[in-house]
């Protein structure tokens, strides 16, 4: 079980990438991109985990020597989530306009940029 978190992270990233490659709809591609990114969350949080440690929020009964999980990766994950959510919104806006202009949202049928 020691490698489960990392294996899940790697699997999510690769499944997301494969999802973009075989997608038949622009929104499907964007969601697959989000899945690929979820893999990075799992990896970061897995790297920072410590067994039998509490959350990095100090309540009244904890001291500075209490074991807490790594807050640095949690801060990184928070930043990562905000960034990816907003960029997904941006890509979704592009997808809306692309579907309107091309009449289709299937990446196979977008043929304006070739060669």
């Amino acid at each position, binding site marked *: 079980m020691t490698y489960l978190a990392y294996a899940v992270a*790697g699997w999510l990233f*690769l499944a997301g*990438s494969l999802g973009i*490659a075989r997608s038949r709809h622009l929104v499907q591609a964007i969601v697959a991109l989000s899945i690929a990114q979820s893999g990075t969350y799992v990896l970061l949080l897995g790297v920072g985990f410590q067994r039998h440690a509490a959350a990095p929020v100090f309540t009244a009964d904890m001291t500075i020597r209490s074991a807490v999980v*790594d*807050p*640095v990766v949690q801060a990184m994950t928070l*930043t990562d989530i905000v960034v990816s959510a907003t960029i997904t919104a941006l890509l979704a*806006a592009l997808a809306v306009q692309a579907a309107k202009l091309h009449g289709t949202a299937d990446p196979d049928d977008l043929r304006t940029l070739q060669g």
Partner: protein
Amino acid sequence: MSRGVRMAVCAVGALGVAVLLAAAFTRMPAFGGAHHPYRDAAVGAAVRHATPNVVSSLNFDQRGLDTLVEEMILVACVLASVALLRPAHHESERPARTGGRVLPASRLVGYVLLPVTLALGLDVVLHGHLTPGGGFQGGVILATGLHLVYVTGDYAALRRLRPVAWYAYGEAAGAGAFLLLALAGLVSARGFMADILPPGRFGALFSAGTVLPFSAATGCAVVCGMVVLLAAFFRQELQITETGEADR
């Protein structure tokens, strides 16, 4: 490339990346281990600045530059989505249609849950330095809470509740407040984004130095930004049509 060739290339690439990652994962430190030097330093620094929530201390105090840039990414993406979803030359904006049936019970649920959700969101923002939460998390709760009115009611109710122009100014104000507070540290010669307020008593509401003001500014910018973003999508879907297309 044809679909088959593309999937073959992708499979080879994915397999190679999987092997690379597997070789890396087997050499990582043991999962759940206790050796995290950056954590030790960060916890010490957070406690010195009287911030019980170490993640908020990292976000707004120790690694504040990352959060400033993250805020700017939010501003950029909201603005970009508004710009990309604007009416094109051959399109125009028509007034939102009214009518349609909304169950009174559904509306009641919305009206009851709206203040509860807003209070919860405000609590998450303002206690970000004490309990899990902060500007980003609370801001998202507030923004989606406002849209409860749309989910349980209709678009007209939502439009009455949130005049978009105010929220656009609010977003700029939140981002501007964040920048001003960061520059205040520079002006006071303590450093950019330095903690210029007194730390206060550990666990009190007004403590943790500048973490609370930064959190509040972020919350304001996030809620206004998300509302503007969602408003752009609503407008694109419900109000923008090609000029000359008959109303259906």
